[in-house]
């Protein structure tokens, strides 16, 4: 009698925690592929790479958490297959473990480049603690750094490499950075900010292939526009793929992740999927989404635990995200689209402002730079569905925080 959680990331550990604190008395087994105590990933691309020296890994929970709560954490163990008829999971050593409920928190893996030379020594990616340790060591030696992909990870790393004094070039095949997550106006602001910081941000320019030097290490990157960039360290940040294969093999529906309903249940009601690997119906966008964020992972983990405990309510949390790129703190609430109307509040020249995104007159997302008050106000407004209209937001002296206080006191 018990729950098996496949995955020792933010989502899986949160689910275990919420199950126990919610009164679940059955057994809880966590299968975590990496060795060692499960840890927090966000610092790996930020504090961890800072020149001042790297802090130790930050555990998601201390070792005592697992023993005190009678949670069987099995590290260095992967799940091989799910037998839905017998309700068992076969693990890497061949043992089959029975479950009443199974929570798939399998996460995602970095998308790999397939261009010539992509496997050359000196080309890195960033996902795990080990990746971060290798990169930290490599940064101390590096002079010419090339980053492939101007997404969050790529730009966080680029800013860290600048702080180490490296010369940094970022190649992005799309016409603007962070295009999947940000409005064009915010992308453009970040383009300028990173260029002012000395990062050579090349847009509309993808990677063609890499050259290796006589020592076998990477020595240059060639772009799709036939430019050659000498390099001694390459970091690839071109997105992730959901780890949904084990679900697909078990006959569960998958489509850009494991397909779940509003309760985060898969097509088998005894199996839930949460975090990066779950493709869920998002009430905010009215589309299916698969999000890669701490907030999504933790909130999914809490919700899945409640579902196992018998709750029937739907998952409706407002998504929020953040990225720290050098001194720039980017916070996003809700989900913007490129065709949303954008209203700028605050002072972009002073690097403290927000972009309010409206769709059909409704506030749907807010992107903030160094403006935590705006971001926190936005989270409340979006959760309550109480946005300012575009006209209100454009009025002189408009403050999102003041508007929020008013709106929450006197909901229309």
């Amino acid at each position, binding site marked *: 009698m018990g729950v098996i959680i496949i995955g020792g990331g933010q989502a899986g550990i949160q689910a275990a925690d919420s199950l126990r604190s919610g009164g679940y008395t059955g057994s809880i087994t966590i299968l975590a592929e990496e060795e060692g105590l499960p840890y927090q990933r966000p*610092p790996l691309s930020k*504090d961890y790479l800072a020149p001042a020296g790297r802090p130790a890994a930050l555990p998601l*929970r201390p070792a005592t958490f697992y023993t005190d709560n009678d949670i069987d954490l099995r590290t260095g163990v992967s799940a091989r297959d799910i037998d839905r008829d017998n309700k068992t999971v076969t693990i890497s050593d061949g043992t089959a473990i029975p479950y009443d409920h199974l929570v798939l928190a399998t996460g995602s893996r970095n998308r790999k480049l397939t261009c010539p030379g992509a496997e050359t020594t000196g080309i890195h990616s960033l996902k795990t603690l080990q990746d971060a340790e290798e990169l930290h060591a490599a940064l101390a030696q590096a002079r010419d750094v090339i980053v492939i992909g101007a997404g969050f990870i790529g730009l966080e790393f680029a800013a860290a490499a600048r702080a180490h004094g490296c010369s940094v070039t970022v190649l992005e095949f799309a016409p603007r950075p962070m295009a999947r997550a940000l409005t064009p106006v915010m992308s453009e602001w970040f383009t300028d900010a990173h260029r002012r910081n000395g990062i050579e941000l090349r847009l509309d320019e993808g990677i063609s292939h890499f050259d290796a030097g006589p020592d076998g290490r990477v020595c240059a990157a060639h772009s799709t526009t036939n430019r050659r960039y000498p390099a001694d360290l390459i970091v690839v940040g071109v997105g992730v793929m959901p780890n949904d294969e084990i679900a697909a093999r078990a006959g569960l529906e998958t489509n850009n992740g494991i397909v779940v309903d509003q309760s985060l249940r898969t097509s088998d009601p005894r199996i839930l999927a949460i975090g990066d690997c779950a493709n869920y119906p998002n009430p905010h966008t009215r589309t299916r989404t698969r999000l890669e964020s701490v*907030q999504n992972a933790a909130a999914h983990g809490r919700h899945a635990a409640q579902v196992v405990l018998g709750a029937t309510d739907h998952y409706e949390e407002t998504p929020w995200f*953040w990225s720290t790129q050098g001194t720039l*703190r980017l916070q996003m609430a809700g989900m913007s689209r490129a065709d949303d109307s954008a209203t700028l509040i605050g002072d972009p020249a002073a690097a403290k402002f927000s972009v309010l995104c409206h769709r059909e007159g409704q506030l749907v997302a807010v992107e903030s730079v160094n403006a935590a008050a705006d971001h*926190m106000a936005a989270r409340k407004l979006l959760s309550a569905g109480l946005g300012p209209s575009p006209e209100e937001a454009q009025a002189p002296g408009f403050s999102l925080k003041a508007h929020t206080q008013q709106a929450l006191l006197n909901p229309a």
Partner: protein
Amino acid sequence: MPTITFVQPTGKSDTVSVEEKTSLMRAAVANGVEGIVGECGGQAMCATCHVYVRPEFEDALPELSEDEDEMLDCTTAERTSQSRLGCQVSVGVHLDAIIVDVPTDQV
């Protein structure tokens, strides 16, 4: 080694010894102190490591940054003049022992 004492709303307290430059959040998370979440990993992004620092330690605290100030306005438990984010306060030379109260809620 510097020590940090976390006092729970129930009155129960945990004292932990940590390396210099360790933040209150990291100390709490690494030692399993109840009531400190630290969901964003110490970036002052989530306001789930809210603590009330006892007044006698106020002078030894680092200055409140604008970011921290704005995030503290949005803590789940009420903000007071003693409120800080645990990820933004580290122990060390000027602060080798500190006592903080843990709020009732973080999320």
